[in-house]
Every structure is written in structure tokens, then in C-alpha cells.
């Protein structure tokens, strides 16, 4: 890492914890066997996978057989959504407008395959509309997929309430479906991941957001859920995820879960509230998402009159790494679908900055961040064609 730099994009990916690196390293050169074999090298590898599966199941309060290791969050989301839908052949799916593109684009693919999809609205804080959910549930609804916490604005969705609504609907209709899937990639570090108490049938999380490497993920599939694979090959992972197991990364993600249990995030919470309070002192700034019902590491603020990509490049120059909902940074050249779903105009998305904290950040870094952002916003507003300062403001008139 660049000396003195401040990394504030943990929602995009975290560094790998050194304890995780130490734990997985032997599985490259020493324990390299293919877990499918019968000889010693294979048995050792198999043992590591089995042990990791137990740890993962323990973390989720599930059975080991209910854990599928995948290549990441995108694959887990694809398997959950495409797998459940294709197992039933037809039907209706409910999701929200602010899901990760791994979920949204899986649903769009299913629309092409003849499935119907409802995209639920969210309120101004980004919370899914539960009344609309109740009204949208139909006899042929096979799956509801709602994220646990949003990756851009950090809003925590009422997963247990959603689960209750779905269970009531199922018992009223004496049906095993719809199943409830949640993408918990952003939640895994901070929120209750006990699948029984939150009441989900499928749950996605991945390594790259929890201090394990990129390229490994988990899909929890409750026993009895009807699902078919999306990849075809050998019979690994109960046939649902063929391909030789990525032993070192599976060991890594399990070790990352062991570390989560020991970590408390009081400091992240303190830094988050410090940043929100200080950054909102900059005039014409607005918090995106809820002030309290949000992940302990997420800050997303719109600064009127500035464009996100420009701000990020100025901040990069000052050694600070963060992200934006501006179209300029997106592949589609469209502004963030999450911020626009909150009822904000496109400009609010173009002008938004997301800061996501991690274990390596410190309060003294946050003081530097506030200064740097306030300087950057000031500079960009001076040359902005849209910014109109308050008559009292000094920024534009000094």
C-alpha cells in the first residue's frame, strides 16, 4: 500500500487479513491435492474443505451440507436466482430496485427466459416497501431476493420482517415457495448472520468484503430448497457447483469468519458518525440513506455542484481512495440506480461520494479526510457551472 494513503473503499473490497494469508498459504505448495482423490494429499485437502465448511456452517448456524463454496458474490447470486427459477421452470420473482447488479442482471436474464419480475420501490432512506411486497406476492411467486444491506448507501433492509411476510404467505397458501434469498455481502462483517433467526432460505456472501481474497464466495441453501446448477461438470459441492474446490481460498474465507467473531466494530461506528457529522457541515451537502439504520462502515454524501469522478481524482492525488455514484465512473454511463431509486434526481447521484471504512482506518485519518474533502469540494465548486452558493457563503466570493 502507498505510504500514508487512506483507503476508504472497503465496500468495494477489503485487504486480506494477514492471519487469513498465513492460514491459507500452506494450501498452495504443501497441501495441494485435489479433494476428490483417495490418497493422502487429497485427503488432507478434503479435510481442510470439510473443516472450512463446518466453520462456515457454524457462522451461519446452518448444517455443513447447506453450504456451497463458489467463486464469489456474483456467482452465488446467479446460482441462487437462476438456480431456483430454472428448477421451477416458470413463475414470478420479486426483488428490489436497489439490488447489486449481480441480482438485477440475473433477474433481467430470467425475464428474457419468460419469468415475470417485480422490482420493489424503496423509500427515501432506501428501505424496501413492505406493503408493496405484500401486494406483489402471488401464488406463482417462486423467489424473493432482497439484499441484507445496500452496498452504496449502507441501508439495512428489514430482513426478519420480510421473512415473516413470506412465511405468512406460504402458510396461508400451504406452499413451500416463494423462497427467500438475501445478498449479505455487505452485511457479513457487521450484522446477525444466523440464518435461522433472520429466516432466509438462501444467503450469499463473499470473501473480498470480509478480509479474505477475491474469487471465493458462499451460498447457503436451506435443506429442501429446489435448485439446479448453472455450471456443469464434476459432482463437487453436491453437484451444484462443479469444478475442483479452490482449497486455499475456502480455507481463507473460513478463517476470515473466525476473525469476524472476535472483531467489534465500535471504532468504525465512531468514525462513521464523526465523518457524517463533519461532512454535513459543508454547506449544500446531503446524506444518502438513513442516518441510523445503516452499516457501521458506510457514508454516502451528495455535495451539490460537484461531479464525483473529478472529486475522486482530486482526492486520489491527496492519497485518499474512495468511490462515487456518478455516471462517469460507471460502465453504463448511467448514474447510480440506487441513489436515483431514493427519489433523488440524477444530479444527486453524479455528485455523491461513498466512503466505506475498515479495520485499518483510524480517527486521526478521518480528520485528514474531512479536511481533504472540504478542500476538494471547495475547489470544484469554484469552477462549477451549476453550483450556487448561499449569499452568506464565502466559498464562491472570497
Amino acid at each position, binding site marked *: 500500500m502507498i505510504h500514508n494513503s487512506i483507503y476508504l473503499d472497503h465496500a468495494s473490497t477489503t485487504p486480506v487479513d494477514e492471519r487469513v494469508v498465513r492460514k491459507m498459504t500452506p494450501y498452495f505448495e504443501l497441501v495441494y491435492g485435489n479433494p476428490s482423490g483417495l490418497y493422502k494429499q487429497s485427503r488432507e485437502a478434503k479435510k481442510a474443505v470439510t473443516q472450512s465448511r463446518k466453520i462456515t456452517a457454524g457462522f451461519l448456524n446452518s448444517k455443513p451440507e447447506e453450504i456451497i463454496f463458489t467463486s464469489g458474490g456474483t456467482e452465488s447470486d446467479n446460482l441462487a436466482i437462476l438456480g431456483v427459477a430454472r428448477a421451477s421452470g416458470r413463475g414470478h420473482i420479486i426483488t428490489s430496485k436497489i439490488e447489486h447488479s449481480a441480482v438485477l442482471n440475473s433477474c433481467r436474464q430470467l425475464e428474457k427466459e419468460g419469468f415475470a419480475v417485480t422490482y420493489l420501490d424503496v423509500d427515501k432512506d432506501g428501505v424496501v416497501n413492505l406493503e408493496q411486497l405484500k401486494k406483489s406476492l402471488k401464488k406463482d411467486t417462486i423467489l424473493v431476493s432482497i439484499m441484507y444491506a445496500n452496498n452504496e448507501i449502507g441501508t439495512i433492509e428489514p430482513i426478519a420482517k420480510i421473512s415473516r411476510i413470506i412465511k405468512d404467505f406460504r402458510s396461508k397458501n400451504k406452499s413451500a415457495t416463494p423462497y427467500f434469498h438475501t445478498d449479505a455481502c455487505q452485511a457479513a462483517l457487521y450484522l446477525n448472520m444466523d440464518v435461522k433467526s433472520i429466516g432466509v432460505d438462501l444467503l450469499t456472501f463473499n470473501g473480498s468484503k470480509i478480509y479474505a481474497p477475491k474469487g471465493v464466495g458462499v451460498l447457503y441453501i436451506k435443506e429442501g430448497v429446489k435448485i439446479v446448477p448453472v455450471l456443469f461438470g464434476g459432482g463437487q459441492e453436491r453437484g451444484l457447483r462443479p469444478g475442483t474446490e479452490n482449497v486455499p481460498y475456502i480455507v481463507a474465507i473460513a478463517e476470515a469468519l473466525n476473525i469476524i467473531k472476535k472483531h467489534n466494530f465500535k471504532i468504525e461506528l465512531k468514525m462513521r458518525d464523526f465523518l457524517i457529522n463533519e461532512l454535513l457541515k459543508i454547506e449544500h451537502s446531503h446524506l444518502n440513506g438513513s442516518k441510523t439504520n445503516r452499516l457501521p462502515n458506510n457514508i454516502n454524501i451528495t455535495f451539490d455542484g460537484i*461531479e464525483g469522478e473529478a472529486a475522486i481524482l482530486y482526492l486520489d492525488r491527496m492519497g485518499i481512495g474512495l468511490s462515487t455514484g456518478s*455516471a*462517469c*465512473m460507471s460502465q453504463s454511463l448511467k448514474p447510480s440506480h440506487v441513489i436515483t431509486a431514493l427519489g433523488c434526481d440524477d444530479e444527486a447521484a453524479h455528485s455523491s461520494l461513498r466512503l466505506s471504512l475498515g479495520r485499518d482506518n483510524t480517527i486521526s485519518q478521518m480528520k485528514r479526510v474531512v479536511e481533504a474533502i472540504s478542500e476538494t469540494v471547495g475547489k470544484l465548486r*469554484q*469552477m*462549477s*457551472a451549476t*453550483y450556487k452558493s448561499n449569499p452568506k457563503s464565502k466559498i464562491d466570493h*472570497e
Partner: protein
Amino acid sequence: MNKKSSKFDIRDIEGEGWVYSAKVEDHFFHPRNVMTGKIKESDFDAIGEVGSPACGDVMKVWIKVENNKIIDLKWKTFGCASAIAATSILSEMTIGKTLNEAYKITAQDIAHELGGLPRRKIHCSILGDQALRKAIDCWRLN
């Protein structure tokens, strides 16, 4: 303009150097001829504005004309790094030109002068030439 720089996409960058050309970097971090609060807009003869905040780019240029020549140009831009750099370099390209010469500046000329821009950015970031033509039209009408 070399072939690589005109075709590259911000997502294709391979992690070396910076995301844009050195010229863009220079103009983005050291913008020239910005209309700041210290300057009187009333000292200028005409103004042109294009873009919309919803699209993420808005540009405004002010021109001062003497004997059919643009003797000063100031600007303001809401937009990304390439939009800011494009307006900044346009100001240098324009000052000293006659109205007719300035009117002929194209988006391609600006991209060329910047040492190339990502393909997908050309359309949205170079609106400055249009803003300039609007300002010139406005001056001619008065």
C-alpha cells in the same frame, strides 16, 4: 493523437500511470482561465451555456471581444476530469483567435489537443466548443 490514446477506455487502463493523458492531468489539476468570484462577469461581452446537470456535464463560457477577436475567455464547468480539462484547454485554444477561427473549433480539435480522451468520454466531456459557438452567436446577435 496516437492510436492508443484515442481508443482507450477508462476501464481498460492497466494500472500504470494515470487514468487520462498527461495533458488532461495538467489542465484538470491546474485549470486555466476559470471564472472565479473575483472576476466581474459584466466585463464580458457574451455568454454561452450547454449541457444539463442530469447528464452530469454543464459548461458555461464568457467571452470578451475586440475588433472581431476573442481577447479573453473565462469558463465554469460541472463535470468530470476530462470535461474540466477540455474546457480549460479550449480557453487557451480560443484566446487570440478571430471569431471566425474560434467558431470552427471542433470537439475533435479539443480531444487532439488533450492528447486523446477515452472514446466513451468524448461525447459527454467536450461540450465546450458548443458553448463557445453559442457565446459567439450571442455576441453577433447583440
